[in-house]
C-alpha cells in the first residue's frame, strides 16, 4: 500500500521479497498476495510441492490404515489387547510433532530422509483410525451377528460379509479425520525432509516481508484437505448405498 514508507523503514537496499530472479510489480509493491509471483512459481515450486505433499499424505494414511486395521481386528478378536493398543496409539499421539520428527533424525538409518518424515505421520493416524475401525466393528447389532452365525457363516465370512461392510461408515469417518489432519501435519515434515507444501511455507515464514509464498502454500494445503475430504465423502456414498435410502 505504502511502498515508500516501507522502503524507508526497510533500509537503503530495495529487497527482493519473492526471491525470484526478476521482480514483479506486485512483488516490489509487496501486496498481501502477488498473483504474478504465484503464476511464475507455480510450475517450479508450488505444483511439485503439492504433488510431493499428496504422496506424503497418501502413503501415511494408507500405511496407517493398514496398521490400524490389523490392530483393530486383533482387538476385536481378543478383547484383552484393546487397552494396551489404546495406550500405545494414544502415547504416540501425545508426542509433540516437531520433537517426534527431530527425534527420528538421530537414528542413523533414518537421518534426514523420506521415512523420517513418514513415520510420525503414520503414527499420528493410528489413534483415530484404530478407534474408529474398532468402534465400527463393535457397533454391529448383536442380533445381526446372531443371525449371521445362526445361518452358518464362518468367522471369516461374518467379518468380510457383515462386520466390515457395516463398519464402513465409521471407518470412512475415521479416514476423513486422519486424512485432513495429516494434510496439515505433513507441512511440518518439511523440517526433516525437503518435500511437500511445508517447504514453501517454511521459506515463506523465513521471508519476513513477502508473504505470498506462505499464503499460496497454506491455501493449497487447505484446498488439498477439502478435496481429499470430498473424495472420501463421495467414496462413502458409493460404498454404503443403504445409508442413503430413507426409512418408511
Amino acid at each position, binding site marked *: 500500500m505504502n511502498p515508500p514508507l516501507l522502503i524507508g523503514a526497510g533500509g537503503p537496499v530495495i529487497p527482493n521479497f519473492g526471491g525470484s530472479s526478476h521482480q514483479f510489480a506486485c512483488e516490489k509493491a509487496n501486496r498481501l498476495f502477488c498473483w504474478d509471483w504465484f503464476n511464475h512459481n507455480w510450475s517450479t515450486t508450488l505444483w511439485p510441492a503439492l504433488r510431493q505433499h499428496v504422496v506424503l499424505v497418501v502413503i501415511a494414511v494408507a500405511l496407517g490404515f493398514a496398521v490400524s486395521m490389523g490392530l483393530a481386528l486383533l482387538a476385536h478378536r481378543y478383547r484383552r489387547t484393546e487397552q494396551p493398543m489404546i495406550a500405545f496409539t494414544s502415547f504416540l499421539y501425545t508426542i509433540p510433532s516437531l520433537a517426534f520428527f527431530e527425534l527420528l533424525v538421530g537414528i542413523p538409518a533414518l537421518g534426514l530422509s523420506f521415512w523420517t518424515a513418514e513415520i510420525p505421520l503414520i503414527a499420528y493416524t493410528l489413534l483415530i483410525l484404530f478407534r474408529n475401525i474398532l468402534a465400527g466393528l463393535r457397533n454391529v*447389532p448383536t*442380533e*445381526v*451377528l*446372531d*443371525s*449371521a*452365525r*445362526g*445361518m*452358518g*457363516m*464362518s468367522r471369516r*465370512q461374518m467379518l468380510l460379509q*457383515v462386520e466390515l*461392510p*457395516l463398519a464402513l461408515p465409521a471407518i470412512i469417518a475415521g479416514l476423513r479425520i486422519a486424512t485432513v489432519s495429516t494434510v496439515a501435519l505433513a507441512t511440518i515434515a518439511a523440517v526433516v525432509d525437503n518435500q511437500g507444501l511445508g517447504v514453501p511455507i517454511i521459506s515463506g515464514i523465513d521471508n519476513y516481508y513477502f508473504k505470498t509464498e506462505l499464503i499460496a502454500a497454506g491455501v493449497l494445503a487447505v484446498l488439498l484437505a477439502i478435496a481429499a475430504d470430498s473424495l472420501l465423502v463421495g467414496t462413502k456414498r458409493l460404498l*454404503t448405498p*443403504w445409508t442413503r*435410502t*430413507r*426409512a*418408511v
Partner: protein
Amino acid sequence: MASTLGNDASSAVSNPIGGDASSALELELRNVQKRYPGRREAAIPDLSLTVPAGEVCVLVGPSGSGKTTAMRLINRMIPLTGGDILLGGRSVLERQETELRREIGYVIQQVGLFPHQTVQENIATVPRLLGWPKDRIDRRVSELLELISLDPTEVGRRYPHQLSGGQRQRVGVARALAADPPLLLMDEPFGAIDPINRATLQDGFLALQEMVRKTVVFVTHDIDEAIKMGDRIAILREGGTLAQYAPPAEILERPADEFVADFVGADRALKRLGLATLADVRLPPMNGDEPVGDVPLTMSVRDALAAVLAAGGRPLRVMSSDGEVRGLATLDAIGHVFDGSSEALSEASPAGRAADEQA
C-alpha cells in the same frame, strides 16, 4: 389366492435343493444337558423329547425355564454339555457347525436382517453360502418373496429399514426357508410385533407351514401363541425341566400338574373351545323357532359361544360353506362339547384325574 400360493409352494419344495415336501426331518433331544461353568444348577438338567417330521413343537415356559437355551443347543449356537441331539437320526455333534447351521432355518425375535443388504440379498444368504449358481438363487428368491406375498421387484430391492416390522419378520422367515431346510428354529419370532399384526403373521406362518411342512421348533413365552401354533407343546418350568409335552388339546384338557394348570390359566376350558369348531359340536336340529342369526360351521366354538352370548343366549343357525343348514348353536350344545373326550381321558390317565380333582 390359496391355489396360487399352493402352486408356489409345490414349486418351492420340488425345487433343485433336492427337497420335496418330505424333506422335513425328525428331531430328537436325548437326555440333553446344559451346564454353565461356575454354576451349580444346570440350566437344563435332563431334557428328552421327540418332534416328528413336519410338526411344529412349541417350547413354552416362564423366563429361566431354558426354552431359548434348549433351542440354541439344536443348531449348536450353545455347546451341549451332555446327551445328544439327533436330526433325522444323525447326531448334530458329528457335523461341522457351519454346515449344520446352513441346513437349519433360523429366525429370531429381532429378525437380524443384514441392514446393508437388500431384501433379495438377505434372502439369498444361505444359498450363497452353499455356493448355488446365481440364476438358481434368483429364481429361489423370487419364489420365496411370492410365497410371503411381497412383490419381488418392488420390495425385493428395498433395504430392511425401509420395511414395516411385519414385512421384516416375513422376510426373516423367507430367509430361513431359502435353502429348503428340513428344520426351522424360531425364537419368539412374533414377540416384537403388535397384537393385530402378530395374529396376521401367525396365520400367515400357519398357512405357509401347511404348504412347506417343515419340522419347526418354536419358542415363545405366550401360552396362547403356543396353543395356536403348536402341533405339540413342551411346557418347561423354571430350572429347565419338562413339565408336560403333549398336543395343545391334551394339555388344556388334562394338565399334568398344578404348574401346567396355572401356566395355561384358569380359562383353559375357553382356550380349548378355541381349538374346536362348530363341526365338532353335536348340534340340535332346527326346532321351528325363527333363529336370530347365522354362524358358519367353520367358526371356532369359542367364537360361537361369544356370538350366542351376544345374542342374549338365544340359539343361532349354523350354516355350512355350501349354504346348508346344519342345526342350531345353543348354549346347551356348546356346554357339552367335551363330554365324550373328557370322560375317556380322565378315566385313562391319573394325571387327568388329578387335574379334575383340582378343578
